[in-house]
């Protein structure tokens, strides 16, 4: 039987990565749907309404799974990580509560109104509802990342009686970590939604079905994708630079940099990592690039893992402060590679549209169907790097992950819930994909019918 810590970490990893398959699709799609419905209200062209309703169906199937897996995320802290919750609840609980108050109510209320209100509200009120849902999803991302940023880079707290107490709410909100993380996650989510729309549109355009709906869908999504995928790289670069300040060990691990580099520092494109022996073989390196990435200049050395380990031992006592180097190294590279591919793919699409050849070539469309997987790979790798890169800390420099688990929960209990949730999630994923595939095959509906019956007698309460 693995330890309770190991099982609780697996549970957090699996449920978080899974939850984040759905979250960025929700955020990205809701903005695209809001844009489409706004075009419908402005241009009074029914094609845009068809678009909004078609993507709305896919959005709702995805949203359902995102919401239910999100409930588990909130309760997991208390269930598996009770000592962590006691230790940081004063600071960490507030953003979660504010997320519920500000974001979840907004999202769920106005999504209900939007779903059932097509013929109950004026067009303006209806389109306003979806924009409010979009704002809700974004606020939700902001507040949960406020909490995560605190775990990565604790600010605005004082230690008292063995736990962290909030001392400055303003510091939490101005945490530099938050302002690198939030734009990166938000833009990544826009890319994800855009690639889902492009992938499905490409599939339909290849079959020459509903071209009047899927051509403009593809065009709108590719414009969002090219802008967001470019900006996500810019922000990501700044975020990586900030690691030098906040978590140099994570940066060193992401470069598999065992010994402090010389100046100028080369960037390693490929390496076989021997973590036990603290060395790499078969390295392919690009000179100067690590200095450029770290400092925006052609010189400067980057501290290595072994030196940082010594520093941390001096500061926090004996122990191993090195995360899983091969995992961090490769997750970072796969994320960057996927991100670069997404920028090139969407730039090519926009280029074709600008040159007024609206339907791009068949070969490109075939690639775009497959490219739908890229944002999911990038999102997953990004979170693996971020969360595994802060190990062995659950709150960086304040609490070790192994000290955060629930004292009264047994490994057997965590294993039971881990198995059930994993199986349940697997089933949900299969059903979710099956239903989305069905919606895609059915295509947009042309006849405009209401989605909620009503009689003419108002209720007398």
């Amino acid at each position: 039987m693995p330890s309770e810590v190991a099982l609780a970490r697996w549970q957090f990893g699996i449920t978080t990565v899974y939850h984040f398959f759905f979250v960025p699709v929700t955020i990205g799609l809701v903005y695209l749907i809001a844009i489409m419905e706004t075009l419908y209200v402005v241009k009074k062209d029914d094609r845009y309404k068809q678009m909004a309703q078609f993507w709305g169906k896919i959005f709702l199937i995805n949203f359902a799974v995102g919401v239910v897996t999100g409930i588990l995320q909130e309760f997991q802290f208390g269930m598996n990580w009770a000592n962590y919750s006691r230790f940081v609840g004063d600071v960490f609980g507030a953003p979660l509560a504010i997320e519920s108050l500000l974001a979840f109510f907004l999202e769920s209320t106005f999504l209900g109104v939007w779903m059932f209100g097509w013929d109950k509200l004026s067009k303006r009120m209806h389109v306003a509802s979806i924009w409010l849902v979009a704002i809700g999803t974004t606020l939700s991302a902001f507040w949960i990342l406020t909490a995560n940023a605190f775990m990565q880079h604790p600010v605005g707290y004082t230690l008292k009686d063995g736990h962290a107490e909030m001392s400055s709410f303003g510091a939490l909100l101005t945490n530099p970590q938050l302002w690198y993380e939030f734009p990166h996650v938000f833009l990544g989510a826009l890319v994800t939604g855009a690639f889902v729309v492009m992938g499905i549109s490409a599939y339909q355009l290849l079959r020459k079905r509903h071209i009047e709906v899927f051509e403009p869908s593809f065009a709108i999504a590719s414009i969002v994708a090219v802008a967001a995928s470019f900006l996500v790289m810019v922000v990501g670069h700044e975020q990586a630079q900030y690691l030098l300040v906040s978590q140099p060990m994570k940066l060193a691990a992401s470069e598999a940099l065992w010994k402090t580099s010389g100046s100028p520092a080369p960037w390693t494109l490929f390496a076989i990592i021997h973590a036990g022996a603290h060395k790499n073989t078969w390295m392919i390196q690009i000179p100067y690039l690590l200095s450029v990435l770290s400092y925006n200049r052609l010189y400067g050395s980057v501290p290595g893992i072994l030196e940082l380990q010594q520093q941390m031992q001096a500061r926090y006592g004996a122990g191993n402060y090195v995360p899983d180097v091969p995992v961090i190294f490769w997750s970072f590279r796969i994320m960057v590679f996927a991100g670069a591919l997404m920028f090139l793919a969407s730039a090519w699409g926009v280029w074709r549209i600008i040159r007024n050849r609206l339907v791009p070539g068949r070969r490109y469309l075939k690639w775009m169907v497959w490219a739908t997987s890229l944002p999911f790979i990038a999102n997953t790798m990004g979170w693996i790097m971020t969360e595994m890169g802060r190990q062995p800390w659950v709150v960086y420099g304040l609490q070790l992950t192994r000290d955060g688990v629930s004292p009264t929960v047994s490994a057997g209990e965590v294993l039971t819930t881990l198995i059930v949730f994993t199986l349940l999630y697997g089933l949900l994923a299969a059903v979710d994909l099956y239903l989305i595939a069905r919606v895609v095959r059915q295509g947009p509906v042309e006849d405009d019918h209401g989605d909620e019956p009503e009689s003419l007698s108002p209720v007398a309460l």
Partner: protein
Amino acid sequence: MTLESFWFAIIAVLFIGFFFLEGFDYGVGILVPFLGKTDKERRLLINTIGPFWDANEVWFITAGGAMFAAFPGWYATLFSGFYMALFLLLVALIGRGVAFEFRSKVEHPVWRTFWDWVIFGGSLLPPLLWGIALANMMHGVPIDQNKNYVGSFWDLISLYSVVGGVSMTLLFILHGALFISLRTSGVLQERARAAATAIGAWATALTFLFVVLSYLETDMFTRRGIDPGVVPVLAGLALFSVQFFIRAKRDGWAFFMTGLTIVLSTITVFMDLFPRVMVSSLNPAWSLTIYNTASNPYSLKVMTIVALTVVPFVLLYQGWSYWVFRKRLSSDHPLEY
């Protein structure tokens, strides 16, 4: 009023909102397979809560979040202590949440029946578990001097807690049946009224049994004496009046009265707990209170400012959403969901 008391009240309010609102949508979910004879009828029943159930559930999510923020010690002990109960609750909520979205997407009868029963199970388990949990929080559970729950899942199951769970479930079914009678017309409305009449007697009987057991099993008696005070007495009167309003076909009043019962009963539970949040059965001194589980004052102040700013808007727009869908449903329009 201290900050700790204020946040205890806020969490009580969130639970009141949660039980009042999700109370009827759990009830509707439980009734769907029984009141809906055809697919179309079942879809209509689900659509009575279609636009609302998700926002209703947020009351509970917010209660959890507020508990985490204001009383981390309570949140940590409750969620890690009632581990398997919480796990069952999560499985129920996950199944229920996707079932509402998935059921109508495929027209195969087996598919729809399957998700209808997932809605049923996912609506039945939460009130059952919440009733059990609240009864245990009042009765007392093994909490040691380190504020840790040292019992097992089976320690939560007793005659008292099961009666609590069943009475809460029956009360919610009654509440849900009356909500259906408000939102439908014709045959469905008739069936909902009949169900309310049948369930109402059982709900009333079990609730009073629970009150009697509370005198025996908790310290209500020593704390309050025979006369429990005005709030629980009103809760009982409201519950009694429901039968009368159903017979008089005053659905609105009947629904208002079940709602009042739920609200006043929840207030009673929280009043009896105060200032404790979880009673220790091992040693009264080890009970969790609002004072030994609360966040620091600064944190509570920040949360207070946020809550007082945001909550009025939440109440306004959520109320507005009910106003948008104020008309009764009937089956002479095509159904999307």
